[in-house]
């Protein structure tokens, strides 16, 4: 083949669309043919300034030997060529012993197979990418044409390597940006903290091809873990090893990379630092696949991710704290509005009730006197009795209303709720009217005590139980479940009372706590309303779960007696006798 034809072929290959490595190998093969070379290969200069044999047209003894050692920049003939960026040509007579790689003693045995050696730098103005090696076992010196060919081939190969590095760099950047954009999406989503951490763990593990990823948020100014989320699974031994490494990361505020642990795995753990404070740690575990020492094993991404996370997470922590506060404020506001509503309504009804009471007492009182003074015959006697009975009924309604309107002061103490329910159930069970009601009570062991007025709270449960009885028409099953519950970081004891009375009509369920709302023929509509008022004044709440066709469940949450509330409230209560005068 003519030189010109060959060169144009090399250029064609170099500019074709096939895979980069295939293009390089193609060019090497063309050179091999033209110079009758026995061995042709390329050393690549890595980031650690060592040369690694990467491309070889065939597996020969010499390529095997050269692959087994990575010379430093400047070391031996290949190192020198890369450093000086000048081609070196040798014949068997002047080739330096062992290519100057003096520890490679075995090279002694193989170099005598060759006659000519060319070492060509693959460099441009700014960077050196490697060295092209051409060894031939025929001839004595390289011709000018061959040298020309080397020159052009080296330039094309340099271009291809440069393109390759650019490609690797771009794909790294693209992965990085894609990962960050995905993490960004998770960070600005309105999910809760837990799901956000889980999402990040998943993205990190997927991107790095890791078996396991873990994101831990640390409590501010403390060692305690606030939250952690994991993706994937590892054995407990590996996990405890990760935890040990995470502790070091937090203590020292620096990353730990490529730490080999059990099961041939590598741990990489990077701190999430914001404004000099370690917010948490992000760790991944990857199977050790031998790429640990090269720099494209993906771990580098973790630093970028943890940097990116630091500011985002701080915002999220603040946001989630803010959300808790807003939730609490909202629920407090709701309580206040409800209480205010009930209070003004109560005042109004109390006034009306009082005004009605006097005329009623007069009507009833004189009707009673009539009954006493007159000798009445049966029908008239019956009429009078009806008047008296209805007056009595009106009076008891008014009494209930007036009781409702009054803010009865709480006489709170530390109370065992389970005991109250046990007593009540016992009380109802001994009533013959309740003989067709079956009770089931379950309560969790070690229930905290509740800070409440036992008389008023008893009234609440009586109201709910009597409602349940009436909903079931005196026949069915009442289930009472007592359990601890945390709502917005506050501790409560919940009492869930379920009946089998068919549930509440969804149309009216929003009204059941309103005063004077009733479904009973002879109800005042104050039972649940009073219960709600009592529970609200205890800073608790009542919830209803309705299963249409089955039954209703009323759940009363009462705040747990913690030392501060109990002591604090007891200081204020109760009023002593002399204070009012």
């Amino acid at each position: 083949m003519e030189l010109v034809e060959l060169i144009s072929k090399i250029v064609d290959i170099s500019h074709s669309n096939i895979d980069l490595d295939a293009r390089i190998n193609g060019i090497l093969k063309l050179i091999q043919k033209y110079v009758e070379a026995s061995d042709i290969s390329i050393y690549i200069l890595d980031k650690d300034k060592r040369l690694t044999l990467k491309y070889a047209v065939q597996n020969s003894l010499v390529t095997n030997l050269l692959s087994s050692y990575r010379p430093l920049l400047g070391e031996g003939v290949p190192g020198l060529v890369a450093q000086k960026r000048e081609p070196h040509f040798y014949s068997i007579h002047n080739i330096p012993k062992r290519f100057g790689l003096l520890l490679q003693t075995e090279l002694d045995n193989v170099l005598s197979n060759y006659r000519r050696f060319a070492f060509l730098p693959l460099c441009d103005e700014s960077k050196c990418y490697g060295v092209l090696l051409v060894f031939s076992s025929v001839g004595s010196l390289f011709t000018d044409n061959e040298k020309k060919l080397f020159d052009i081939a080296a330039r094309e190969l340099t271009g291809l390597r440069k393109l390759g590095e650019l490609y690797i760099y771009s794909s790294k950047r693209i992965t990085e940006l894609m990962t960050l954009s995905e993490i960004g999406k998770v960070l600005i989503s309105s999910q809760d903290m837990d799901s956000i951490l889980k999402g990040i763990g998943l993205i990190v593990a997927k991107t790095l091809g890791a078996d396991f990823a873990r994101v831990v948020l640390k409590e501010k100014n403390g060692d305690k873990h606030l939250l952690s989320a994991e993706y994937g699974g590892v054995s407990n031994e590996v996990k405890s090893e990760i935890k040990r490494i995470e502790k070091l990361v937090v203590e020292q505020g620096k990353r730990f990379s490529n730490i080999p642990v059990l099961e041939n795995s590598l741990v990489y753990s990077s701190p999430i630092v914001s404004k000099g404070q370690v917010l948490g740690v992000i760790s991944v575990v990857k199977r050790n696949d031998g790429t640990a020492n090269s720099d494209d094993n993906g771990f580098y991404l973790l630093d970028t991710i943890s940097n990116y996370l630091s500011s985002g997470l701080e915002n999220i922590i603040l946001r989630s704290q803010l959300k808790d506060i807003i939730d609490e404020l909202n629920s407090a506001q709701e309580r206040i509005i409800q209480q205010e509503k009930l209070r003004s309504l109560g005042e109004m009804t109390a006034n009306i009730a009082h005004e009605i009471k006097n005329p009623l007492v007069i009507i009833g009182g004189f009707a009673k006197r009539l009954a006493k003074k007159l000798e009445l015959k049966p029908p008239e006697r019956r009429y009078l009795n009806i008047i008296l009975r209805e007056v009595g009924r009106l009076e008891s309604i008014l009494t209930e209303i007036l009781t409702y309107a009054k803010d009865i002061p709480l006489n709170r103490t530390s109370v065992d709720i389970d005991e109250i329910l046990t007593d009540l159930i016992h009380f109802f069970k001994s009533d013959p009217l309740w003989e067709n009601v079956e009770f089931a009570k379950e309560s969790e062991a070690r229930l905290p005590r509740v800070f409440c007025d036992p008389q008023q709270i008893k009234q609440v449960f009586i109201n709910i139980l009597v409602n349940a009885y009436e909903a079931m028409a005196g026949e069915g099953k009442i289930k009472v479940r007592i359990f601890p519950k945390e709502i917005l970081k506050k501790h409560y004891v919940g009492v869930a009372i379920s009946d089998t009375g068919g549930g509440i009509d969804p149309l009216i369920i929003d009204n059941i706590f309103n005063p004077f709302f009733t479904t009973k023929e002879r109800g005042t509509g104050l039972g649940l309303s009073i219960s709600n008022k009592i529970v609200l004044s205890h800073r608790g709440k009542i919830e209803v779960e309705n299963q249409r066709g089955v039954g209703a469940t009323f759940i009363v949450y009462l705040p747990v007696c913690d030392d501060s509330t109990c002591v604090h409230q007891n200081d204020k209560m109760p009023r002593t006798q002399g204070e009012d005068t």
Partner: protein
Amino acid sequence: MKDVNILVVDDEENIRILFKEELEDEGYKVDLAENGFEAIEKVKMNKYDLVILDIKMPGIDGITTLTEIKTIKKDLPVILCSAYTEYKQDLTSWISEDYVVKSADTTELKQKIKQILGT
């Protein structure tokens, strides 16, 4: 039975009449006052064994009247009588002898009177 004099204080005329007739049926002598001022005057002038006092009245209310009466005659028993059920709870902080919720049924009132007077 020796004469027992009871003063009924209420701003509502028909309540006064009702209580008077009910108590007279029981054999008590009953005098009436329609407000706090009149009641205080009558307590000053006459000798009563017991006062039945409404709380919500125009002019001076029952609680102020009660304090006045107790200043004039410390040992004169007073039964507060009102439509409000709630005051019952605060009874202990007042200086009246008892509290009865006003009702068409005067049985409880009569019982309390008997208890206090020991009749």
